[in-house]
């Protein structure tokens, strides 16, 4: 699993951080998503899928 974030689309809702805090973070200055683990371990996959689903602007995708 590879996680992609479109930082141009992101509106800093912070829902991905709530769903998968070990994989996502928010930039201090503007709240925009930071992918901490672009290739997350298997045990985080479910939380990452939740994060992708919960993003209000579809800024996250998987490959």
């Amino acid at each position, binding site marked *: 699993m590879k996680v992609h974030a479109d930082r141009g689309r992101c*509106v*800093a*809702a*912070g*829902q991905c*951080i*709530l769903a998968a*805090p070990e994989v996502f973070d*928010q930039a*201090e*200055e*503007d*709240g*925009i998503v930071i992918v901490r683990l672009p290739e997350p371990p298997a045990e985080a996959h479910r939380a990452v899928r939740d994060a992708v*689903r*919960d993003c*209000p*602007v*579809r800024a996250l995708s998987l490959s």
Partner: protein
Amino acid sequence: MESTFAPLPAHADLPVVPLGDAAAWVDLHATLAAAREASPFGITDAGLPVALRFAEVEYILKSDQFEFGDLIAAVGQTEGPFYDWWHETISAFNPPAHTRLRRLLAAAFTARRVNDLRPTIRRVVEDALEPCLERGYMDIVDFAHVLPMRIMGGVLGIPREDVTVFDTLTDQLASGFNVATSKDPVGVANVNSALKELQEYAAEMVRDRRAHPKDDIVSTLVQERDGIDRLTDAELVAHIVFMIFAGHDTTKGATQIATMLLAKHPDQTALIRENPDLSGAAVDEVMRYESPVVMTTRQPLADLEIEGVPFVQGRPIGVVLVSAARDPRGFERADQFDICRTERRAIGFGSGIHFCLGANLAKAELQEAVRGLATRTASIELTHDVAWQPFKTLRGFDELRLAVTPS
């Protein structure tokens, strides 16, 4: 949500959602389900077209062919201080201006910032719960009233003695979104005078925090950040007033509803009592099962059709969150309150680029309230039937008393 626009002839065949009839509010879910099962779109008896099913609601909220509904124009106002204020706030903007404001404001609401505020939130919850536990009962309306105001006061840095004044002014400002108020010159004058007081207070806060930064949201927003664009003083004032307004009735309603649901579903409350970490999931389910916001509005940027139904540029559409959340096409066992559900949940914060800016703060407030209510009590019971207020697009109760036994 009201509108003074005349309905389109093409909407004449849509099922009517009689939100102007008090009877429709007794069981709002049944009212909405009747229309939703007939069609993806309905029309209120006031002539506002409404999206009812999960797929269409999601589509409209996430689509870049729509902008936020002009709530002030919808109630018949096209000028004046109230109109000007609303059009300075983030809701009224589209990208790229929206994107800029969103990023500047979002810095104050990141998950990390909200976590820093948790001790303040927890203390407010404890203080509000304590007297209820001593008395053995709780008036939900009082509890839910005190909580968001003190928390919002705490995070914005409003002194405790000013909180009541804010409460009254915010109610007065909120009345501006009603057709009746905006048609009455006295009503309009009251709205504008409340707005002026709130703006003056906000301007004073900006001056004060610039000179003496504190650990609050206003200080975060006014801070100079090298090499990064920042909010102008006018933008700061408009948005401080906006945050006071947006965090007021919404959070009050959500707190009332969360408390009511814990009392009504002791099996679910017992789960939280055993495992307080479930309070996050419980709040997501509260925000799905009984969203405090009945609907939000969007308007098309150009004439368009969805599912063969035409919509006109600049004419608002009600996007009914309460209905989408109970759509069996969107959720399994949609009518069941289940804090352990694993599919998509909270819909009450909206979606798309206007997704609630304060959602993380609201969630933290509600989580602390739910955790406190479950863990500090041995039981919470309703002492009479639940009666929802009619005609309120921000939902809640006039009164509701609970019996509480301390743990």
